[in-house]
Each structure stands twice: as structure tokens, then as C-alpha cells.
């Protein structure tokens, strides 16, 4: 991977990480967007689509209400696509060979992302504490400066998480790829895809609950299964 590609992935991961909570929440942070764009940067959009779909299913397990703590799957998907591409890439139609390795890198990066958001929020609280007196005096300049510093902190966090994920991807490729047989790769892929499907189904059912929405969900599953069978 060239330095230019690496820097582009880092920049994309940073934007994606910033979008999740801070600016501007237009949902480029969703894996279904972050993945394909990362794939396009690597010249391998199919791996991007496959990992994007997989992590979008994991995303259904997350409901970002209040001050809830949750994994961050945006930069994680960028790192996952990079790792999967390095491990073999995709053949089209979602037939990515490195999807299991990508998922491993992505899930660890997602966990790091969640922890780092918690740390940034604590740093923000500390900065607010330090400026409390001037805030209570209604100093608008301090208010804006504090806010901009928070955004900068989040951007730095997103860049560091993406860099960690990209580095982890390179390390995993070096350690794992040569050591795995074709059967081993398939086992990792099976684990990743199964976990994604389970996450998507369980996360959605939690949202839907036992009310009337459950009937709509069942109707959707039947319809989707029929379309999948007919294709």
C-alpha cells in the first residue's frame, strides 16, 4: 500500500470518526458508507461493500441514546477494509476472501474507538471545569474556544483510532495470512458473517420489541427471504 493511499485512508477515517458524534452527523460514519469509500480509495470497492454490509449489521446492536457507551464502527470499517484488501481482497458480489480478518481488525478497532470517545468526553469535562468561572460570566469567546477545542480533540481521537486500526491491519496480515490454510480463512469468514447476521437480527428485534412492530418485522423477513430465494 502506497503512503498516499495510507494517508487518504487516514483522512477518510478521521472524517468518518468526526461525523459519528461531533460534526456534522450526516452519517458518513455508517459502515455502509465508510466501507465502500475506503474500498474505492484502495481500488477495491467490492471488499468495501462486503465489509460495509457486515459492519452495518453490527451497527444495529448500537442505540446511541443519552450518554451510552458503544463501539465506534466507522473508522473500524475503514481499517477492516484495508486489512481485508491486504489479505486478498474481493472477487465481486461480496465474495471477499479476507472478510474474517477484516472483521477481526474492525471489531478490535471498534472497541478502541468506543473507549477513546469516553476518554475525550472526560477531557472535555476537565476543560469545561477549568473554564467554569468565565463560562458563568457569559464569556462567548471562551465558550466558542472550548467548543472548537472539543471538536479538535475528537478529530485527533478519530485520527489516532484510524491509525491504530490501519496499523493493526498490517500487523494482522503479516502474522495471520501466511499461517492460515484455506479452511482456516473460511472458518474466520464463517464466524464473522454469522456474528454479523446474529447482531443484525438481535439488535433489530430489541428495537422492534414485542408490540405490533414485530408483525411488520416478520413480514419483512418473509418478503426478504422470498426475494433472496427467487434471485
Amino acid at each position, binding site marked *: 500500500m502506497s503512503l498516499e493511499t495510507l494517508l487518504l485512508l487516514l483522512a477518510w477515517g478521521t472524517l468518518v470518526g468526526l461525523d459519528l458524534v461531533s460534526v456534522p452527523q450526516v452519517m458518513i460514519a455508517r459502515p455502509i458508507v465508510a466501507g465502500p469509500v475506503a474500498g474505492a480509495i484502495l481500488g477495491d470497492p467490492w471488499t468495501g*461493500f462486503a465489509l460495509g454490509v457486515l459492519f452495518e449489521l453490527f451497527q444495529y446492536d448500537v442505540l446511541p441514546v443519552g450518554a451510552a457507551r458503544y463501539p465506534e464502527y466507522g473508522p473500524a470499517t475503514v481499517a477492516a477494509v484495508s486489512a481485508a484488501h491486504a489479505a486478498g481482497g474481493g*472477487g465481486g458480489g461480496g465474495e471477499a476472501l479476507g472478510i474474517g480478518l477484516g472483521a477481526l481488525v474492525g471489531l478490535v478497532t471498534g472497541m478502541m474507538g468506543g473507549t477513546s470517545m469516553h476518554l475525550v468526553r472526560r477531557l472535555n469535562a476537565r476543560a469545561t471545569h477549568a473554564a467554569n468561572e468565565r463560562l458563568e460570566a457569559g464569556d462567548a469567546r471562551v465558550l466558542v474556544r472550548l467548543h472548537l477545542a472539543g471538536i479538535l480533540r475528537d478529530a485527533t481521537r478519530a485520527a489516532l483510532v484510524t491509525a491504530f486500526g490501519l496499523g493493526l491491519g498490517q500487523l494482522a496480515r503479516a502474522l495471520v495470512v501466511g499461517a492460515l490454510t484455506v479452511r482456516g480463512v473460511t472458518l474466520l469468514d464463517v464466524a464473522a458473517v454469522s456474528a454479523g447476521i446474529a447482531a443484525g437480527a438481535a439488535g433489530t428485534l430489541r428495537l422492534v420489541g414485542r408490540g405490533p412492530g414485530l408483525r411488520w418485522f416478520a413480514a419483512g423477513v418473509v418478503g426478504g427471504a422470498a426475494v433472496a430465494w427467487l434471485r
Partner: protein
Amino acid sequence: MTPALGKSLLRLFTVQGSYDYERMQGIGVGVAEEPLLRDLRAAANGGGGGAAYRAAVARSAHFFNAHPYLCGLAVGAAARAEHEGVPPAQVERLRAALCGPLGSLGDRLVWAGWLPLMSALALIGVALGGGWRAIIGFLALYNAGHVALRWWALRAGWAHGMGVAAALHQPVLQRAAALSGPAMALAVGAALPLAAQYLSGAFTGWSRGAVAVVAAGGFALLWWRRGKLTALRLGLALLAVAALAAGLWR
């Protein structure tokens, strides 16, 4: 749109930029409200300093937590109340009273409705071979609703001031909240089998059966241990088991 409302709207896109566990969105809400309070500074200049402006800015940055897309409602309403000379304690009570309803409505409408609905349609689009069109469609449609909601919230808050509760009872909003749940359930339900087929396209023979069995087992575990076991932990555990099995089964 007045320049002040435009600036406030733009700043609302960054409302969670300085999110923390004490004031939550307070600092971001204060930053978004500040352009709407500048008139107070001008008015006060005629009659004795910017005390009203500074006091209003200080209040605007106090604790606030709601759905980020609907924060504009509180920003507009509180700014209008400050202009109307409402007593400070009442402005504080208005902000506190809006947290719960705005959070609950936004969570139902967006996080548990509009967003998963659009995401599911994107998944269906990608699974059916829509590729980039599905992604661009997702971003365009989702953000049409997103930006409209932010703009409506700010305008409604600014128009109603202390009577902003009336805006929350608008029939369109209530109907959207009621419809988004079933629509989301239907779309995500349809997306799951299609996404599963898309992801397992490369598997043949035993591996296809293994995906079905492991996914069913994983789902059962997540459902049984909900609140304790997360999808991330399940994914990592399954990958660890797979790596171990790959080492043993050569």
C-alpha cells in the same frame, strides 16, 4: 432566514462537538444559541452594557441533553424567551423540561426509525446489486430528512418561545413517529435475509450450513444475554474460536 438563524443552524451541526459527561450538550447548545442572543448585546448597549447578553450566554451553556437533531427547538425557544425578558429561572426550567421530550421523540423518530429505515434500504440496494446508487441514495434521502428536521426544530423554537410545547404536538410529527417504527421493522426485516445472502455468497457446502447454525446460535445467545452480551463481544469470541479451530483442524 435571518443571518442569525442561519448561523445558529450551521452551529447546530456541531452541537455535540464538545460533548462531556457533566454539561452533556450544554456547551454546543450555548455556541448554537449565541448568534440569536447578539441582539440582546445591541439592545443592552443603549441602556447599560451587555449584562443581559452575558447572563443569557451563561445560561445557554448550562446542562442540556436531548436528541442532537432536535436541540434547535430548545435553542430557538430559549433565545426567544431571553428576548421576551422571561425571568431566568423560567428559562432554565424550559430548557430542563425540554430535555426528556426532545430526547424521547428524537430517539423514536431518528435513531429507532428514520436512520435504521434508510440504512436497511441501503443494505437492500447493495444486496440487490445497486452498488453506489444505493449509497448515494441513502446519503441523499437520509440527509433530506435530517436537515429538514434540524431546520424545522430551530424555526419552531424561535417562533413559539415559551409556548414551544405546542410545536411538539404537531400532527405531522406524531404521525411520522408512529409510522417510522413499523416502516423500520419491515425494511430491516427484509434487509436481513438479503444481506445474509449477499455476505454468504462465497460460501459453499459445509460453510454455508455452518453460517446458518452459528448465526442462529449467536442470535439466541445475544437474545438470552441481552444487556450483558454485546454483538462486539460475540463477534470477537466467535473469531477467537474460529482461529483456534483453524489451528487445530489443518
